[in-house]
């Protein structure tokens, strides 16, 4: 059965590591739904968060193949329940769409205006994909000029630490 998994990878900061990781997915014809990279708590160790929609068998294989990369320290995989995660979305709306209706929507979704320019405003919302997608649908009536959503950033609920693997 396919479902959404998040693979959390801890790696050395080595040129080419992102290519090596994505090759594992492309070779198997698996789409990456989200991909973020940043430094982790440990200096020099990077944390890559990858979202895929696949089966448990496949996600195990993917994680093992990722761990096989020399500069990868550890790859964990989780289902959504095992993680706390967020995504950020930005919506660009023309200035002439602003009306009381828009303000109500912003309040209702706990979003905020982070920039107001001469011709447009930028609204930001953080949350799960379903919520930011929802807001997009609602905002369509206000004429969304641009929309962008980040990959997820996530921390795991199980109390495992990367220290054990260093």
């Amino acid at each position: 059965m396919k479902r959404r998994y998040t693979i959390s990878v801890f790696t050395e900061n080595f040129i080419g590591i992102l290519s090596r990781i994505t090759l594992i997915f492309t070779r198997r014809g698996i789409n990456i739904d989200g991909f973020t990279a940043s430094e982790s708590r440990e200096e020099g160790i990077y944390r890559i968060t990858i979202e895929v929609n696949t089966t448990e068998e496949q996600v195990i294989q993917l994680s093992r193949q990722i761990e096989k990369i020399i500069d990868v320290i550890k790859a964990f995989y989780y289902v959504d329940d095992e993680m706390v995660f967020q995504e950020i979305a930005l919506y660009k709306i023309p200035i002439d769409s602003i009306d009381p209706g828009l303000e109500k929507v912003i309040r209702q979704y706990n979003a905020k205006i982070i920039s107001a320019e001469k011709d447009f405003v930028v609204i930001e919302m953080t949350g799960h994909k379903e919520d930011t997608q929802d807001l997009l649908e609602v905002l369509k009536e206000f004429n969304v000029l641009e929309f962008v959503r980040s990959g997820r950033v996530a921390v795991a609920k199980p109390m495992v630490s990367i220290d054990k693997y260093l």
Partner: protein
Amino acid sequence: MNDSQIRGAEIVIKSLVAENAKFIFGYPGGAIMPVYDALYDYMDQIQHILTRHEQGAIHAAQGYARVSGKVGVCMATSGPGATNLITGMADALIDSTPLVCITGQVLSPLLGTDAFQETDVVGISMPATKWNIQVRRVEDIAPAIAKGFHIARSGRPGPVLIDITKDAQVALGDYNYVPCLNIRSYRPYPKVEDSVIDAAAELINNAKRPYLLYGQGVILGKAESQLKAFLDKTGIPAACTLLGTGALSEEHPNYVGKLGMHGNYAPNMLTNKCDVLISVGMRFDDRVTGDVKRYAKQAKVIHLELDPAEINKIVKADVPVLGDCKVSLEKLVEKVEKKEHPEWFKQFRALEAEEKRVVVGNDLSPTKNGLTMGEVIRHINEFKADDAILVTDVGQHQMVAWRYFEYKTSRTQVTSGGLGTMGFSLPAALGAQLHDYSKEVICVVGDGGIQMTIQELGAIMQTKAPVKVVLLNNNFLGMVRQWQQLFFDKRYSFTELDNPDFIKIAEAYNFKVQIVDERVDLRQAVAEMFVHDGPYFLEVKVEKEDNVFPMIATGSSVEEVRLK
């Protein structure tokens, strides 16, 4: 700058010497010229073998690595030199062969500008290497080489690529070689857990029809004697994969034959009759399993494997024994009971007799007119030394030679297994021979494959390596023709060859030559080949349209192995 500093190019050579590399197989060119210049002063410490194509260089390094157990080293220039290595890298990766490949790269300021002979070899080789790196600073050369050797030879071995820009080669730096022993993100030898050893031993001790499959992991892990001890005690029948061949002497009483598409009848058939399947250092290649949905479903599977990514990849293991098989076999042998399985062996021997009757007899001692590949191998067996090394190319001759050559010691079988690279054998035989001139190295090659790397006759000539080349000429891309006959209504689309006069070619390269097209001359010709001290080229004109059997057709189950 101080006086003790040397150029990066010299650091490359000194690092290779520090790693005890005896040979560099390579080919020069612009971006690697500083290293070749440095080499000129080190000819007494490391031998460079000039092949005639970079593909030849890397296959020679593979042949050397496979028989010696050491890391093979090859070198090439940037651009086309580097891309010519790619086939060999892919081959070495899938067959777990330790290699360090060094390529020159354009000056670092020119990277990404489409400079002359610039190619992104780090990018291209990523899926074909265990690890790779581009070095742009002289101080990074020695650490990269140290890390490369460690990665290439440890754990599950494989090829690494080190791409060095020309400015790093000519810059001056300090030489201080520190071998790499540990990389924090890399754990090559997972610890064997005692609890799984107990679980495995229990399954084995209670098994009625246990069956062991061994692969190249036994050879790579230097676990041949542990495997033998385990088999001696447990009395379990054992079959080998293509690359595992030789890990156990074929004269061992427990040896029951070879697995896979053109392996033996009994080992394939009875895979679906055993109750416990113990696989040691093998990865359930589809050429071994046939239709995996109908593979050993009745059996409990114990999988001894070093690479965590192989566990449950193809066949689900009831008891995965992760770790070095040398260690796990040593632990297991303590826990298993001494047993014999005479009734179970009888089943193997009965099917073996059937294969002998239907296939082997006709292959080895044919009565029809045309010469068979099998009878050539029979005569080779007659004259070869026990530890002779057989290097084969890819095709019918590969399967026939593998089936009939009598393997008695480890590291005597060299072939391109996972990738099936035609053209592999001639340069690989050169590399194998260079490791030890006193050993017999026989290269069995087809008329198609030899023409993929035939230029390496020149490298053999130059080194005077006494390789025995046996060309089994059927005037066809035989293995493809066989498939066309069996699965494509005999529509022989582009598989028949108009061949050159191979003898003239070999003579031009100073080989002693001989051609045989009649049975009466065969035995004598093979005998003469073995007494000749130097490169030898024997061409045998064999039957054009013979087929290799047994055979498991693609998509069939191991039980559907056909004898004809």
